[in-house]
């Protein structure tokens, strides 16, 4: 029953994915704080809208503010054969449940010799840009990607949001599904097909430099690429989509062509996932590089509140352009 592709916003794409998941997957259920009674009845960004009306309160439930127990509870619920999808209102709040995520969910399969599947999805949002300040704006994808046992998804378009969420529910691993709070209203084409993990997307074809970036920085990289194009520099932009599993082959192939690499993300630059991509390329494709790769990421500071300060700590279009020029110089 494939539907015709349609342009929609990210929140709607996610909402459509959840409707389709609940319809297709009887073991799935959705839970989180304020997911049916806030706003117009769909949580803070509308993603869970009307789910309870259609699927009932047994499969779509509002929870108390109890992240710690919820995260470890859904871990066990998953191990016992259901497919929970837990919304954590902001990814910063997942810290309350890090024992559940890291010590329980991520390790259950391994510790117990492969007996347990943990088909759990934690949907949450990260990122800055709307003044939510230090405790509601962090980009935590690197922390999650560092933990063996977790799959980490960072959709950068509405189509990817739909497709990757559909896939997330089918995998038997705990998945951290990180939306970007400043991209819920961005529009794009959704084709209503599940999208496997570990397949990067070439967001723009180019020949002179490879830029690997996600979410808000991906959007900025595409703007930077237009500016560079005007100067005769052709940038290829790659969206990894999933940070684990991650698709290095697409990056190797691109670097073999462009011989230059810039990696950009909103997570703090130091010790960030960009370093991982750079290291992989340096270790395995050293001979394909004509210059040292460049990493871009947020400054080593919490996210400040005031607008100009907030803007100053994460990579801008100008900084991406400058980074490309630096590696090409």
């Amino acid at each position: 029953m494939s539907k015709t592709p349609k342009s929609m916003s990210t929140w709607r794409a996610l909402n459509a994915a959840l409707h389709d998941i609940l319809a297709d997957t009887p073991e799935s259920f959705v839970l989180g704080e304020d997911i049916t009674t806030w706003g117009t009845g769909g949580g803070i960004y509308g993603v869970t809208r009307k789910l309870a009306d259609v699927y009932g309160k047994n499969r779509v439930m509002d929870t108390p503010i109890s992240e710690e127990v919820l995260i470890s509870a859904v871990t066990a619920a998953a191990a016992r054969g259901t497919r929970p999808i837990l919304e954590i209102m902001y990814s910063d709040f997942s810290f309350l449940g890090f024992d559940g995520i890291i010590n329980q969910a991520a390790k259950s399969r391994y510790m117990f010799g492969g007996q347990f599947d943990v088909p759990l999805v934690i949907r949450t949002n990260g990122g800055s840009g709307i003044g939510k300040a230090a405790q509601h704006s962090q980009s935590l994808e690197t922390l999650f990607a560092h933990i063996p046992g977790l799959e980490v998804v960072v959709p950068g378009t509405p189509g990817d949001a739909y497709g990757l969420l559909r896939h997330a529910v089918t995998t038997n691993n705990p998945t951290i599904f990180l939306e970007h709070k400043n991209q819920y209203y961005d529009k794009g084409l959704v084709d209503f097909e599940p999208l496997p993990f570990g397949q990067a997307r070439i967001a723009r074809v180019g020949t002179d430099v490879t830029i690997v970036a996600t979410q808000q920085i991906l959007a900025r990289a595409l703007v930077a690429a237009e500016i560079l194009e005007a100067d005769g520099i052709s940038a290829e932009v790659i969206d990894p989509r999933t940070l684990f599993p991650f698709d290095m082959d697409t990056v190797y192939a691109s670097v073999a062509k462009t011989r230059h690499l810039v990696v950009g993300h909103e997570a703090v630059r130091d010790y960030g996932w960009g370093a991982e991509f750079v290291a992989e390329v340096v270790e395995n494709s050293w001979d394909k590089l004509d210059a040292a790769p460049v990493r871009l990421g947020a400054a080593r500071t919490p996210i400040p509140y005031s607008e100009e300060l907030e803007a100053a700590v994460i990579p801008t279009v100008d900084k991406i352009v400058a980074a490309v020029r630096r590696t090409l110089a």
Partner: protein
Amino acid sequence: MPDFDNEKQGITGLRLMAKIREFERRMPLLSEEGLIRGSTHPSVGMEAVAVGVSLALETGDAVASNHRGHAHTLAKGADFGRTMAEILGRADGYCGGKGGSMHIGVKEIGVLGTNGIVGAGIGIATGSALAAKVSGDGSVAVAYFGDGASNQGVLAEAFNLAAIWNLPVIFVLENNHYAQSASIEEMVAQPDFTKRGEAYGVKSVAVNGMDMRDVYLAAREAVDKARAGDGPTLIVADTYRYLGHMAGDTEIYRDADEVKQWHDKDPIAFLASNLIEAGALDDARWTAMQAELTSEVQAAEDFARKSPFPDVSTAFTDVYDKEEVSR
């Protein structure tokens, strides 16, 4: 039983409550004007709790607040202008515009921060009380948190620690009946929150959170007990927020009649009429007080609006003690 002096606590408290309300009433307007980023959570209707508790505290005592923390901060003695400047993200704000509404700390008056993490203040106040015990500085600490926060795990751990160590901490649970859009009816099976404290050996009292006198008297007792080394108290204040959870709240989760009913118990009107009845206040004085505090809040707003935005370079400072400015 401590006593309530109509001038000392009554008039002072009434004025402070009315001034905080005037301040908070402006939040949605400033938000609509685009001057407040992110989210801001006014506490209109809940003034009696912050003020009643604060009147029992000294400057050296500490408060750990939550996301709905302007009143807690102002009642503890924060300057209205600098608090407003912080909410507007300005250089003259207490945190130089880095914190905003949800992260206002004021060290010199013991405000350990409003907080964006629901329930976090419970652990933080417990830690302040631990420091007081270890250092013997004689201070007490207050944690303000909501009915929603009572469902966080930290509450159980903090109550137990405070009880076994007899810590000078006062847990103030502001039960305004909703956690964002979630009603207590749906989120707790035992709505008598005093049972939570009792279960851990924390002395627990329920107060009418719309009656500043009732709150003050309970707080006074709790503070005296804590200072005497007799350990923690949980104060459960029954109250209500008149405005939405934050600017832009559709409020589909509650009906207007309910809100109206609580307006009939308004803590400011209630205290004013009590003081008038007792002969401690008359209409003329009350009218004059209101005019005066309105112009004080206006001055605070003018100050905040005129305050410059912080210099961008400050985005990279204060991360470490030794300034290691990163990219």
